[in-house]
């Protein structure tokens, strides 16, 4: 891990993000907008009084990012169809299940992206994250059989791997690759 960034520098990524949001909102890049953006972003961070963000440890790998996004978008469609079919075909109350999935990523950011990707797909909600024991609890729908539980579990693991490949730290990436070799 990199040495802890201290002081104001740790806020820099978040500040940049906020300035980007600001510029996009105004839809203009005349000097006035980014400059006020910096002031507003700093003010927002200061007034929010939140704890300092974690240092970024990940690396951006553009190709793999595309793979991740593509996979996710595909999954969005397929599960949307599944859920709709469930509603139209069966209607009424259907079976759902709370599934516990073991996770491997260490950084909180990666876990979050994973959990939220899962939640994005229709029918699935990441309910809780137990970081101490390395588990993600996902509520899936529709689930009627043990096989579908396994499908969901595999889906979560796959998405996690894609996320780590796309933006994970080298350390996380090595862990994944070693594990897959062992299989």
């Amino acid at each position, binding site marked *: 891990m990199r040495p802890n960034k201290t002081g104001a520098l740790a806020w820099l990524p978040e500040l940049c993000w906020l300035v980007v949001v*600001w510029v996009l909102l105004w839809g203009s890049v005349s000097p*006035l907008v980014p400059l006020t953006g910096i002031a507003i972003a700093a003010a*927002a961070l200061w007034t*929010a009084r939140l*704890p300092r963000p974690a240092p970024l440890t990940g690396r951006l790998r553009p190709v793999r990012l595309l793979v991740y996004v593509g996979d996710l978008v595909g999954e969005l469609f397929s599960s949307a169809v599944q859920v709709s079919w469930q509603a139209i075909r069966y209607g009424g109350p259907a079976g759902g299940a709370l599934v516990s999935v073991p996770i491997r990523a260490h950084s909180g950011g990666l876990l*979050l992206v994973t959990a939220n990707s899962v939640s994005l797909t229709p029918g699935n909600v990441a309910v809780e*994250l137990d970081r*101490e*024991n390395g588990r993600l609890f996902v509520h899936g729908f529709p689930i009627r059989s043990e096989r579908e539980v396994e499908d969901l579990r595999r889906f979560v693991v796959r998405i996690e791997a894609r996320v780590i490949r796309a933006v994970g730290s080298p350390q996380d990436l090595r862990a994944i690759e070693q594990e897959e070799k062992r299989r």
Partner: protein
Amino acid sequence: MLVLLLSHFGLAASVPFVARRLGRATFVLAAAAPAAALVWAGFRLAEVVSGGSVTASLAWAPQLGLWFALRFDALASAMVALVAGVGVVVLVYCSRYFERDEPGLGRMAGLLVAFAGAMLGLVLADHLLALYVFWELTTVCSFLLIGHRRDEESRHAAVHALLVTTGLGLFMLVGLVLLGQAADTYRISALLAEPPEGGPVSVAVVLILLGAFAKSAQVPFHGWLPAAMVAPTPVSAYLHAAAMVQAGVYLVARLAPAFADVAAWRPLVLSVGLVTMLQGGWRALREDDLKRLLALGTVSQLGLLMVLFGAGSRTAALAGVAVLLAHGLFKAALFLTAGVADRQTGTTRLDGSTGLWRRMPGLFGAAVLAAASMAGLPPLLGYVGKEAAYEAFLHEGVPALVLAGIVAGSILTVGYSVRYLWGAFGGKPHTLTAAPVPLPRVLGLVAPAATLALASLGLGLLPGEVHVLAAAYADVFAGGEEYHLALWSGWTPAFLLSAVTIAAGLALHPLRQWIEGAVVRVPDAGAVYRATLRGLDLAAVTVTRRIQVGSLPVYLTVILTTLVATPGVALVSHGALPSTLRLWDTPVQLMLGLLILTASAGVAVARRRFTAVLLLGAAGYGVAALFVVHGAPDLALAQFLVETLLLVVFLFVLRRLPPRFLEARQRPPVSHAGAAALAGLLGVFVGGFFLLAATARRWPSVSAGYLDRAREAGGTNIVNLILVDFRALDTLGEVSVLAVAATGVASLVLVAWRGVGGGDGDPAMTEESEKRRRRRLTPRAREAPRRRWLAAPYGPPLGPRSVLLEAATRIVVPTALVLSAYLLLAGHERTGGGFAGGLVAGMAFVLRYVAGGRYELTAAAPVRPASVIGLGLFVAAGMAVPGWVGGGEIFAGTVLEATLPVLGHVKLVTSFFFDLGIYLVVVGLVLEILTALGAQVEEEGGLAQ
């Protein structure tokens, strides 16, 4: 004059801040304002006594006929002399009277100056409504000053005074409005020049007199004045002897020239005044407390003043001015001596054995002078006034009963004057140590009283000068008599009556034991007041029990049925549907309409509250989508945000309610079908109403000019411009009402739940359980870095902590804040505005609260929500000032533009600050809701555990 008034209030607002450093000298500083008023009045006196007047006015809202008009004439000058003169003396006296460490010195000094300013405004006001405002300001000051000691007795006395004077003040307000409407002007000078006539005027005059009677402690409203004697002595001397209680008399004097001939005036004023004079005098003779004796004496003298000014004749008015001045001087002086006596002997009981006359001859001298003026002995001012009073009523045409009453009242006055001197100073000092202790600071305490007493003497020796002033007022009364105020007018009947009065009065003193023992039942005004209050309470409880059954469905049914039944019937009978009706612009509207209808119908049939809330939200979002389709993004944005906030609030509330609307075999207070039918009818009514209202337009729409004006106001978003510029005053009103309502509701919720159970929110406890939890973890888990996402490491209000929620909150909050800043800043040009921005920022706080609980909220916004609301209102209302002061209209905005080197073209519209105010109010409101509802929910959780 305006500057003079403002300086009073400015000083009043600032002295409390320097009080800690200056200590008792604060009072001397505070005396600067009345002193300036006194000097100013002195310079303008010449102008006034020749019959002229000094006026000043400030346009407040000229379109509405609201002028802040001041007028300084002969009557006002007499009052100003009293108010400012006695004010200076009393303030100087205060700087010696109070102990150095007396609590609330600064507050008291500020209030006294504020009172002096209010009183000054009252006597100078030339507008009925301005007069009323100052009238009530003096009442408020009096309330605060009586309650200075903050114990039970002071509090009761303060409330008593407040209820009686403001309660009848409301009658007076009605009277003033009636009068102003009848005369078609609220300017007092114009009103007096051409007095209106007719039935409403008689009613108005009676109502105004009621207010004046209460203020000047006339029977039967006099009970508050003796009770008010719990106030510190200087306060009694100023407010309850010289200044405030004379306000009622002043009003009678002010209106008498025009309205003394109204049928009800003379009988009412003369009878009430006489009864008050006799009753007060009699009770003063039996009183055994120095201050209450003086207070009852004041009641009696105010009765005399009422008679004199109410009589509406020239001589009586001359006497009135003289007695007014005399009474202010001698009564304040007597109170000040009573204060010293109290400080030196430690009691205000009057037992005739203090022997103070030997120990403090200077003080005794001052008291003798003042009491002599009160008793009407020559050559003091009181004598001059009393002679004139006798003279006025010796003439034919006035019932002899009035004269008899005044003589009897004056005899009583002489009696209690002697009683006061005897009680405060008399006897041998046998209860005190033989060698008198050296008395500290005695000069500073005696000098003010002596000043006032000597002024009585001085004016008494110069009756000619007093006459000039009094005549400048009294000459407006038509009357043949050419009476002059004088010490010696020859062997007139009035002189003989004076002699008889004094002799009889002196004879009362030896009879004091008989008088004290005499059984004469005079109704006690205090008992009447208490009985009235009890009756009122009882009536309120009875009515409330009948009307307020405590069931929300029943209330709603009553309100909505009324709505459907009254305007609804009118709509059906008189309304005409528009000839052409377009069902929709695009099919999307139809779809959305169906969605909304389905959701609404779903709410009606839902069994579970949660389902109903969600369906309600769906209907709301559907309406927002309709707005979007209709091309109203601002409305849609606001609707979306409000709907979301509402959902969260509902979730908090649902925690406390059973999941289903009705438990098994429970009968609803309003039948389900009935409620659904009513709701349906209401929907039809509202829809039909809007349809008709939109087509019933006869005049061109006011919004037609908005587009052109928008450029002038420096913006392009008309919705926002209407809110913050064109109709800023409306918005301010709405925001204020919202703030008041929210604060009220929140305080009710908080009050109801404060002190119930311990709650689970104790940080120390939570920290302890957190440690315990970690000890139970597996080794791997313990090594895992425990990251903090939020500022406060304690749990949320509902359920266990959720890392996912916390993390999402951590990431979303700064972005939400930036978005809210954008909405606020962009509102003038694009979709947005302070309201939407404030809601988005509020939503960020909602998120943090839901994720992190009460402590997270405190960490996020370490301010009291009420302060945020207050600051917002202040900023928004403050925007009214620049335009107004700049000579334009209130809320007039300016566009500031500049081209800067790097930044380019920069534009700032001043109405942005108004928007900022709204933003703050909304954020404060959301915080208030979270605090109130959240506290309740967490309390509940604590109890459940």
